[in-house]
């Protein structure tokens, strides 16, 4: 529990010094890990950190009720720090106070630039799990018809609860396309046509922005393997544009920028 102890000490210090008025970290709730929102330095003891702490806490930085209690310091794994880089690159935040935790290590209190440096120095080679790469390779080897059957079966489970969207730090639109209902742009029916449209739109809107943190798939109450979609698009972005989002807080968005030497092979 060394990491947790260091986290608690720094959280208490940040709150006591007034550098943060709210620390967001993890606490235990039975077998689950739930977010902890701490304003009182005397209450930092609820903070825990272990490999069950997987929720991407960066998602709370956009929540109005949370912002009202700021300035915020956030317990951040490399995945969370990468989300912060994307948010900074997209002008959604200008600064951050992170309590940086890594694989079996605690890296202390960092600002945005410090987190960027840490990511580049120690976590530049973050790669998807081998099982995920293997599952995507298997899926890619199927015929388009067989792939369509696979996704039809997966999307049939979707209830349109939008937990995938809500859990993603990158899904921060004030009004999502599925909420544009005058007229209704995307069918709200949890049926094949609406579900297909929703999942394809969600994945496309993440192209070049997704850091593969896995929050969407972990959030899905129906167990839809969304990471297969995310990884397929990420691989495409890496191959065509050489980009790996979530490292540079000043990066230009892949889909929102143009370079003369961009691959234009798709124009036929």
């Amino acid at each position, binding site marked *: 529990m060394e990491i947790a102890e260091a986290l608690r000490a720094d959280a208490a210090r940040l709150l006591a010094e007034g550098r943060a008025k709210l620390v967001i970290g993890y606490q235990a*709730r*039975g*077998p*689950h*890990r*739930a*977010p902890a*929102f701490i304003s009182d330095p005397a209450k930092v003891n609820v903070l825990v950190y272990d490999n069950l702490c997987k*929720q991407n806490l960066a*998602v*709370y930085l956009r*929540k*109005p*009720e*949370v912002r009202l209690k700021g300035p915020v310091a956030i317990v951040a794994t490399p995945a969370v720090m990468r989300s912060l880089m994307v948010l900074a690159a997209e002008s959604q935040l200008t600064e951050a106070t992170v309590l940086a935790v890594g694989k079996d290590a605690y890296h202390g209190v960092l600002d945005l630039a410090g987190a960027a440096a840490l990511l580049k120095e120690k976590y530049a080679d973050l790669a998807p799990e081998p099982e995920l790469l293997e599952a995507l390779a298997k899926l890619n080897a199927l015929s388009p018809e067989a792939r369509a059957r696979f996704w039809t079966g997966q999307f049939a*489970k979707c*209830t*349109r*609860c*939008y*937990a995938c*969207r*809500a*859990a993603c730090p990158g899904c921060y639109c004030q009004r999502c396309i599925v*909420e544009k*209902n*005058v007229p*209704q742009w995307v*069918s*709200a*029916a*949890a*049926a094949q046509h*609406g579900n297909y449209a929703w999942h394809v739109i969600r994945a496309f809107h993440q192209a070049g922005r997704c850091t593969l943190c896995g*929050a969407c798939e*972990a*959030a899905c*109450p*129906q*167990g839809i*393997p969304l990471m297969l979609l995310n990884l397929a698009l990420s691989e495409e972005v890496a191959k065509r544009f050489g980009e790996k989002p979530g490292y540079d807080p000043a990066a230009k968005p892949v889909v929102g920028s143009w370079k003369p030497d961009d691959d234009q092979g798709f124009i036929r």
Partner: protein
Amino acid sequence: MKVLDANKLSDLAAALAAAGYRVVAPVRDGREIRVQEWKPGAAIDTSAVPVNSIKEFLFPRCEVIARYRLEGDDFSPEPVATDAPKTAALAVRPCDAAAMVILDKVFNPGTAGVPWPDGWEYKDDAWNARREATTIVPVVCTAADQDCFCTSVGGAPDATAGADAVLRSADGGRKFILQPLGPKGQALVAAAGAVLAEGDAKADPPAQVPVRFDAKAVTEWCGGNFESPLWREVSLACIGCGACAYCCPTCHCFDIQDEATRTESVRLRNWDTCGLSLFTLHSSGHNPRPDQASRWRQRVMHKFSYFVEKFGSLACTGCGRCARLCPGGMAIAQVCKEIDEARKAAVK
């Protein structure tokens, strides 16, 4: 009594399917156990509470409730038949069966034993047709996890509310006893035929589910605390999705949408939830529930206050799915416990 070997649940399903039932049962699907239409060869898995309730087989996520044709100035409605196949919900959970009785209050008030509250004149034909066609056979829970709280909301791991028959684990998990509780259950036992043997078995004790909060106290507190700052505190972790409502066996809100082309229109009833911002958004742009705090308040108030006031029961059966599946790690039982504690502190 009617007994069958514990590993013969699929044989029971097969016999019921052969007798003309659509069998829905918990079957493992990847990482999840899901209540789904049973197909030959599928193993029924009662080892954990499934991710979905049986609600969707009586009140589907999306349902066509009307069709129209439009030709020039002509508008012609077309009949829509309710799809209500004869169904056996097999080896489902007592908390799901109990939820169907709660939903009857909304969708079928005024029938035997169900009061008809003032100003509530709604009868849902589709629900009632499917309810009539469905035989519910829960399995008594012999294990509970940390998110189960049926005993806090008037239920029990061996409760039979809403059940037409009940399966009980027996002889240390080696057998099941199938006990019919009414005419639908008797018909199901008869349809099962030789799969069920006449025999003796000793029922295993039901799970121990500790009481985690005082539901009456929660109802009472809710009545006077619409503006409490507690709502904002307890809902900080809410990320604003509908996972809790859609896995809930009693949540029953829906939205009606028309999907039309130039020549035809389909009117759909889709699940909807108070957890999403669009739920209460007015066409003016005003939203009377502008944040997750007010949406969470609605979730708790509806289940523990408004429903009690209108229909005389809680609208929660303690299945714990919302806590198991919440991407923000929230748990309604935890919120209710905090309310219970807030009330005790206020009384002191």
